[in-house]
């Protein structure tokens, strides 16, 4: 068993709780930096995809997992980021300014949807984001000057200070560094007053307001930060897929992102990464699974969404903290080794938490 004996207040907000985590994270970062020299380009491409998904998941995690605002239209922010980025790249803007402006454009859209969101709560907000994404998708189809309409638009290869990121390796490092910078930034935000305010709003809006948290400001900020990250993810995604069409950014993508957050584990940065790993691996697993199923079921194209849905339902019912919750349980088991009790993580019975006005 490990006891963390805190002697300084700084330890409460340190990025690493103890030396062991420092060791494992250093090992992980060495492995990630060395990966291009060790594995085949195909897997490197998959890893880049994983990083992009993680970034998108991180963006929704900030909004849904920490600020408690449900967005069912996150694909719209990804789309805005992707299209603005491609537009600027075509006009000869260098990579980094273009990506930042893509993020900024998405963030502006986030503020636009976030300002009315201040007055809405819970389900109204979710539906407003859904409506927003439906409108955004129609705009992607119709605004041909920017988006190329439904024909789509080709994405040039990324150029970094005149140095072409043609192959998988350069792009891999780009995705990795963007993801790491964003995770560190979000971690810093979360241990600062901003993050505390978000969590307070998530857990009880009224209590947070009573403690002097400016609801309007922090909710809008959450939308802006989340949309900024989504815009960055969209820009990277555009390079990854190479060709943008409006039917990439459908509600299906939004639901996949929500699923990433839910399966990964709501309210944890780890969750965003676990969820992304899950989403990247699942199609492969399903493809393997098809070989073992009876032919009548295995050939169905609807099998894949069905499995997604079943997993989502099972996670919500059985493991509401997702893969991260599972990971924490496993860790706890070994910490406490002979003393583990499953009751530690028992779900509390709650009365219905009403949002209605009686």
């Amino acid at each position, binding site marked *: 068993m490990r006891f963390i004996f805190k002697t300084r207040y700084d330890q409460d907000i340190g990025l690493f709780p103890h030396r062991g985590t420092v060791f494992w994270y250093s090992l992980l970062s060495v492995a990630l930096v060395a990966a291009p020299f060790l594995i085949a380009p195909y897997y490197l491409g998959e890893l880049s995809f994983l990083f992009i998904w993680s970034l998108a998941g991180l963006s929704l995690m900030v909004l849904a997992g920490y600020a408690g605002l449900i967005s*069912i239209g996150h694909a719209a922010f990804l789309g805005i980021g992707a299209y603005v980025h491609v537009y600027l790249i075509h006009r000869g803007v260098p990579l980094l300014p273009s990506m930042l402006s893509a993020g900024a454009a998405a963030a502006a859209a986030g503020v636009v949807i976030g300002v009315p969101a201040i007055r*809405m709560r819970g389900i109204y907000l*979710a539906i407003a984001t859904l409506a927003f994404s439906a409108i955004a998708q129609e705009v992607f189809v119709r605004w041909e000057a920017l988006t190329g309409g439904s024909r789509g638009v080709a994405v040039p290869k990324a150029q970094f200070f005149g140095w072409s990121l043609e192959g998988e390796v350069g792009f891999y490092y780009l995705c990795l560094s963007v993801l790491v910078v964003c995770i560190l930034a979000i971690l810093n935000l979360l241990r600062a007053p901003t993050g505390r305010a978000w969590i307070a709003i998530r857990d009880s809006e009224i209590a947070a307001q009573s403690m002097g948290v400016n609801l309007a400001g922090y909710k809008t900020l959450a939308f802006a930060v989340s949309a900024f990250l989504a815009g960055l993810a969209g820009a990277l995604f555009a390079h990854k897929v190479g060709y943008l069409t409006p039917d990439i950014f459908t509600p299906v993508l939004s639901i996949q992102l929500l699923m990433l957050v839910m399966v990964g584990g709501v309210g944890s940065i780890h969750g965003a990464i676990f969820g992304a790993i899950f989403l990247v691996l699942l199609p492969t697993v399903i493809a393997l699974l098809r070989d073992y199923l009876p032919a009548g079921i295995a050939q169905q194209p609807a099998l894949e969404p069905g499995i997604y849905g079943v997993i989502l339902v099972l996670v919500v019912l059985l493991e*509401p903290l997702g893969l991260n919750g599972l990971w924490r349980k496993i860790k706890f088991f070994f910490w406490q080794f002979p003393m583990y009790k499953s009751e530690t993580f028992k779900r509390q019975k709650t009365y*219905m938490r009403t949002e209605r*006005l*009686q």
Partner: protein
Amino acid sequence: MAEFLQLFVNGLAVGCIYGLVALGFVLIYKAGEVVNFAQGELVMLGAFVAFTFVVQFGLNYWVGLALAMVTMAIFGGLLDMIVVRRIIGQPQFSTVMLTIGIGVVMRSAAAMVWGPETRSLPTPFDAATFRFGGVVLSAVYLSILATTALLGLILFGFFRFSRVGTAMQAASQNQLAAYCMGIPVKRMLSGVWALSAAVATIAGVLLAPINLIDTNLGAVGLKAFAAAVIGGFGSIPGAVLGGILIGLIDLFSGVYLPQGFKDIASYIVLLVVLVVCPQGLFGAVGRKKV
């Protein structure tokens, strides 16, 4: 003018269907505070089940419709008893994700059972049309209006005068108090799900002649969402009125506005309504007391 009236009647009819779906949302939301994102899929499944009874088994239209309603009501009740009940009291995010998941499963199950083809459901009203002045009214649209009005009356009577209906109202107003008065709250919630699934089946069958039946029929759920929100999400007449509003907007924007507005006009109206009065047109305004 004739064109305007024609559009108005058709919009009214489509709006009535949206209203019926929205009514299903509102029933479930009022009962258990679960926002059912799978309501559109219930509509789709209801239409497919009715298709099976009427076309594949060759039953009479009305018998098939009744059987489909009973089947779907049992399905809805079981869905609540087995799956949804366990989530009540958890944060709203969980309920949203659960119902989205259920919707995805239902859609893919329907695709596996009935295949991806588009089906049509013959109705007794298919051929007949009536003329009033320059306005051509097809019996299909009239049947939709009549069914909605009838269903509205039946539901009103049910909630107002029947013992079970009153108990359902009590359970949705205050679960604890209802429980103390000896109302079987859990059974009432399942009953509301069953009722809502049956209403969704009617909506699906009514929609079938207009929209044909395929696995994307569930998209009507999104429009109905807009309707329910405009109506205030807690008010049954509000839901139907919101539905009619959305239906009218849909048809008129398709004709009088530039191309592309047909699909999004209702969402724009929804956003405007939410910005102007965030609780919908008929919702209660105020804050929860601590």
